[in-house]
């Protein structure tokens, strides 16, 4: 029998090949960080985004249908006509309730928009990061709608994150809880500056705080505007724990984000990178 090294070591050769390819891809991206998303990402998102958008817009209908089904499961069927009427009314009520909630959220977004001087773009969240290692969301607006890279993303409660990848009709937003995200911040009562970085868990960490600074649990943390990405004065979160070591150069604090990043549905994107302050109005 003829000796064929490739067929004998086929498994190993293919593995080495794909590992090499992965390394090359990684080094290429780390070396040349791109303004816009890379070609494979663009291609995949172009295919996937319409489906995600369609599901997002029909989710209200399905959730009302599901809730209606669960609610009605144990009701006796005494009067069929009446039951159908109740069913229809409930379904309508669910729709109206969902519409009311959406209206309230959009109204809050609109109010926030009026208080921000740089032009802003409202967007809907259409997807979440599939990986647990990263924290990002996908929004339904891209460079066609005027979204730029490295711009701040807000919602009525505070800072959400920053735009990191811009595609034609969609954009990727890196959340403030992502371990690779860093935002210049200051503690509101003491005006001490630091950097808020994401953590593996649901919290953020406020780093590089001077040892002699007075930081208390419950203090508000705002953007400092020094990073040039987000305007000054946007609420980030509240201090939930302070870590002060005697021999360390700096003290650290754990920050609980003000925005519920898990259930966020609509956001406001600042159209151009800006560090000028904004008047934040508390709800």
């Amino acid at each position, binding site marked *: 029998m003829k000796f064929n090294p490739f067929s004998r070591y086929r*498994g190993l050769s293919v593995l080495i090949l794909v590992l090499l390819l992965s390394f090359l891809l990684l*080094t290429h991206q780390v070396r040349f960080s791109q303004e816009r998303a890379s070609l*494979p990402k663009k291609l995949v998102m172009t295919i996937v985004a319409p489906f995600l958008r369609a599901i997002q817009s029909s989710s209200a209908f399905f959730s009302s249908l599901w809730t209606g089904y669960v609610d009605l499961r144990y009701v006796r069927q005494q009067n069929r006509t009446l039951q159908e009427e109740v069913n229809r009314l409930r379904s309508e009520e669910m729709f109206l309730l969902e519409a009311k909630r959406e209206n309230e959220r959009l109204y809050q977004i609109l109010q926030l928009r009026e208080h921000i001087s740089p032009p802003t773009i409202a967007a809907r969240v259409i*997807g979440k*990061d*599939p990986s647990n290692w990263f924290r990002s969301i996908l929004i339904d607006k891209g460079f066609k709608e005027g979204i730029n890279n490295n711009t701040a993303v807000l919602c009525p409660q505070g800072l959400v994150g920053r735009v*990191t990848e811009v595609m034609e009709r969609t954009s990727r937003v890196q959340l403030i809880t992502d371990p690779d995200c860093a935002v210049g911040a200051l503690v509101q009562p003491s005006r001490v500056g630091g950097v808020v970085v994401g953590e*593996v*868990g*649901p919290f953020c960490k406020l780093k590089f705080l001077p040892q002699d600074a007075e930081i208390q649990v419950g203090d508000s943390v705002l953007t400092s505007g020094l990073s040039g990405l987000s305007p000054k004065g946007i609420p980030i979160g509240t201090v939930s724990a302070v870590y002060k070591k005697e021999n360390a150069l700096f003290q650290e604090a754990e920050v609980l984000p003000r925005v519920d990043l898990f259930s966020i549905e609509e956001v406001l994107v600042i159209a151009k990178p800006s560090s000028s302050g904004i008047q934040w109005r508390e709800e």
Partner: protein
Amino acid sequence: MKIEMKLVLAFLVLLAIVIIQMKLLPYFAIGNIKPDLFLFFVCYLSLRNEEARGALIGFGLGLLEDSLSISPLGVKALSFSLVGSLLGFVRKGLFWSNPLAQCLLLFSAGILSGFVTLLALNFFLIPRPMGDSLFRLILPESIFTALWGLLFFFVFQRWKERKAR
């Protein structure tokens, strides 16, 4: 089955994986950690194929997950191709039709994939703390994937049985 039909089916399955992972599984997340459906499919398909195909399946699905994530391309492709290749290599010596074995297999694959991902991230991006990553991410993710994987294994098994009939 015709090649066109196979391609359409593969596209639909991939689309379903993407939609379930991005839209449905976040609702079942505990402490922000959700099961990894991509990893389940890498394991499931690699156990049915030889190591070269396992590596390619892992690379392909990993690349797809990277494309949908904020992560640089190659992080998951690297870890999944290793998992796929390893499972393809050891599959003949494994008895994996038992639910407990399936659970353990998925858990081990999750741990291996998690450590490779951690190494790749620490090497190429901002380093993540080892302890936090292990206890707050790798372990919970592996457990969730293993438990949810059982359900998927069961569904696929039933589907295969019905198809055989």
